[in-house]
């Protein structure tokens, strides 16, 4: 099925054809969509997966995530790959054969070092695999002739709980809805105490009610499938195996709030899931679970469109996601007004994530009491966790809320654990002394990412990677986040490379607090979390890399003279400054 005529899709199509987006096309697209050329240009500029110069026949995006990234057991696979191919990272080889880029987490953290090649995931890489890949690329073999095991993704579901242990057949939730009426089903959802599974935990029933009550011409249902938090991959599994239940949840929501159109905003990294999702949508249309007069109920008209993003973590923020749906750069709006009263196209919009809609579909069928019988007082139900990092059994686990970290670590076979990062880089870094803490909105809240770090890891390296992630993903709208995340990355780099002093540690603390307190949106509010947690729980990792001085400049005086040396063609001793290192 053809993709909907969305700006992001049109740009993707052009890029598929030319391997980049030529400047002429920008004007053409602007005309086609009746948009200012500056808007189209801003969109091309904003999303990491749009390019303004040609990429290679083989275009590789190597994950730089701490769990599915190119650092594999001490070997830098990205370096190895680019060296063997004779291409610099983020560039296209002169013959146009190949381009190699790094990218933020691609949600394959349970599959070891992974990359996307022309959009298709390639997993479990090791140095031998890289060598083999280089050979295949040099000989121009099409991907269909590559070892198929490389492309095999298995969703390892280690533990099923409330949601996953029972199946919901397509239509069961909707039939319950039509039999009992929307008021009763909404009451069940309220009674279930279901809260948004994205991490913030807003009450779902309340959100739907507020949306329904808002005066409007139209209302929309939007599913946030922009699972971008490094270390999260449970939505990938849900989209592959439970898409029907997701669409069912969205359709139930649509009937309750009175929406006729719904959107799934799928992260660009998961584009390969699109054919599968389209198939399920088509089947639902055929079986009267979508479309006009759903299940023969006159006036119950609803359909779902999938919009695919193009590489921007910020689009997981609901108002940025809506901007992106509207064909704009993903810049978070000022809130209030919240999307529930003024969302997509300015109309009341429910935005929930994949797991929330799936839970809602089950609740419609099984009732609120069924759901709230599990979990804690504040956090009803269960939570899907994506567990990765240093453990024997990475994969997906569904736990009742209230489970301790200790229990989780035991279940996934993690020994000698030094720390866990719960909720991804924007979450919380927890040391051993706090493994008694519990998953739940009242204690350790998480969208679902849980990364385990053994005592073999250098925590500072991890924190640096997280800082680099945020500097890369900041949308650039507000001063503290735009400038601050880059300063934090630079500041950490200085310490990581053994040039930092006590002064730099104090600076790190100060800038972190500023970014956290003064930024515009959740990205900025959380970007400094790993640093602040690190300074508090793991100061020794910072301290042991400091040079024992109060201050050292950010730039290297001798290196600053390099250009002058080149121009004067001198490189003798006198042309160098002595660096006064102790």
């Amino acid at each position, binding site marked *: 099925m053809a993709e909907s005529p969305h700006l992001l899709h049109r740009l993707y199509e052009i890029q598929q054809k030319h391997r980049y987006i030529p400047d002429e096309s920008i*004007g053409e697209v602007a005309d086609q969509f009746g948009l*200012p*050329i*500056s*808007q189209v*240009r*801003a969109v091309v*500029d*904003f999303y*990491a997966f749009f390019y303004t110069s040609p990429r290679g026949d083989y275009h590789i995006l190597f994950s730089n995530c701490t769990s599915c990234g190119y650092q594999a057991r001490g070997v830098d696979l990205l370096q190895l790959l680019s060296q063997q191919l004779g291409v610099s990272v983020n560039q296209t080889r002169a013959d146009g054969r190949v381009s190699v880029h790094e990218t933020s987490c691609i949600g394959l953290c349970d599959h070891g070092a992974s990359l996307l090649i022309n959009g298709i995931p390639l997993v479990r890489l090791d140095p031998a695999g890289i060598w083999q890949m280089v050979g295949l690329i040099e000989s121009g073999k099409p991907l269909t002739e590559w070892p198929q095991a490389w492309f095999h993704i298995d969703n390892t579901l280690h533990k099923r709980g409330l949601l996953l242990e029972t199946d919901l057949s397509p239509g069961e939730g909707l039939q319950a809805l039509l039999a009992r009426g929307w008021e009763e089903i909404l009451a069940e959802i309220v009674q279930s105490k279901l809260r948004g599974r994205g991490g913030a935990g807003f009450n779902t029933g309340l959100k739907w009610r507020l949306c329904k009550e808002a005066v409007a011409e139209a209302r929309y249902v939007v599913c946030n499938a922009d699972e971008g938090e490094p270390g999260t991959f449970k939505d990938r599994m849900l989209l592959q195996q439970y898409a029907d239940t997701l669409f069912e949840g969205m359709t139930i929501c649509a009937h309750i709030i009175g929406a006729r159109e719904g959107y799934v905003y799928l992260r660009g990294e998961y584009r390969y899931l699109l054919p599968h999702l389209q198939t399920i949508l088509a089947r639902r249309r055929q079986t009267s679970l979508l479309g006009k007069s759903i299940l023969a109920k006159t006036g119950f008209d609803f359909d779902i469109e999938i919009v695919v993003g193009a590489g*921007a973590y910020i689009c997981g923020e609901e108002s940025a996601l809506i901007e992106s749906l509207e064909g704009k*750069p993903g810049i978070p709006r*000022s809130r209030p007004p919240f999307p529930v009263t003024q969302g997509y196209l300015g109309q009341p919009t429910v935005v929930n994530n994949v797991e929330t809609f799936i839970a809602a579909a089950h609740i419609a069928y099984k009732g609120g009491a069924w759901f709230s019988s599990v979990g804690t007082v504040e956090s009803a139900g269960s939570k899907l966790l994506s567990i990765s990092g240093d453990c024997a059994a990475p994969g997906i686990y569904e736990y009742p809320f209230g489970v301790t970290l200790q229990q989780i670590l035991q279940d996934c076979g993690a020994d000698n654990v030094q720390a866990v990062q719960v909720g991804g880089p924007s979450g919380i870094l927890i040391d051993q002394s706090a493994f008694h803490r519990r998953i739940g909105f009242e204690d350790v809240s998480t969208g679902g990412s849980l990364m385990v770090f053994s005592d073999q890891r250098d925590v500072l390296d991890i924190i640096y990677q997280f800082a680099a992630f945020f*500097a*890369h*993903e*900041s*949308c*650039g*709208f*507000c*001063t*503290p986040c*735009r*400038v*601050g*995340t*880059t*300063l934090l990355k*630079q500041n950490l780099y200085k310490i990581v490379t053994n040039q930092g002093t006590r002064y730099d540690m104090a600076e790190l603390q*100060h*800038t972190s607090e*500023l970014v956290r*307190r*003064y*930024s*515009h949106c959740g990205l900025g509010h959380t970007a400094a979390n790993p640093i602040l947690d690190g300074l508090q729980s793991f100061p020794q990792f910072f301290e042991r890399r400091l040079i024992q001085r109060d201050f050292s400049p*950010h*730039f290297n005086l001798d290196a600053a003279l390099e250009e002058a040396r080149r121009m004067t063609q001198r490189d003798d001793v006198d042309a160098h400054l002595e660096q006064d290192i102790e």
Partner: protein
Amino acid sequence: MVTEPEASLITIDNQKIPFKHGQTIMDAALAAGIYIPHLCHFPGITPHGNCKHCTVEVNGKPVTACTTLATTGQKIRNDTVELNEARKSLTQMLFIEGNHICPSCEKTGNCPLQAMAYHLGMLEGHYPQQHPVREVDASHPTIMLDRDRCILCSLCVRASREVDGKNVFAIAGRGIDARLIVNTPSGKLIDSDIEVGDLAAKICPVGAILIKERGYDVPIGQRIFDQHRISEIGLENEIVKRAPSDDP
């Protein structure tokens, strides 16, 4: 019109001030003669909330005064040591992020960014200079765009759309690579319909958009911030009023 007396008051630093329904904290403060530091806000133009200088604390929570509606009974802290220190850091970030050349900039003395730095007691850039490489657009016969000095406040973007009825500028890019672009196929100012009299050509709070050949019409010493502090209310309009509005 009769309103309940308590229903329309907010408190800023222990001073009670009235507000009208629909006013932001910034609007109410300015109307009452209270200065809340701001760079990306300009009275009459839709607020954006990107510079974060106007951050105040409402019941302990930081919010931007320019985008937050005043509501009855808000207790607002504005002129505090902590907030002003943060504002100073934000100002420093704006300085080190671009390539600013105050001593030789045509805008010196009329520049709100510079005046903000004075107001907050900023003595140095503090953070490492970023030295970005940004494009200068001198294509237009009378208007100059020097992105080196742009602080991405988006005032020109909004002024062009909302007041001039054009759409000359936009912000593109992401993170530290965000940049001001011109809404023309060439990306050049000369192909746009901007004119010297446009608000967009006069509103820039730094020396990024300048009218050519008029930079020194007013001698240094007689410029606005040579004679006023930025904390005096209503200077924005003064800057715009005094800007050259005819071709050189």
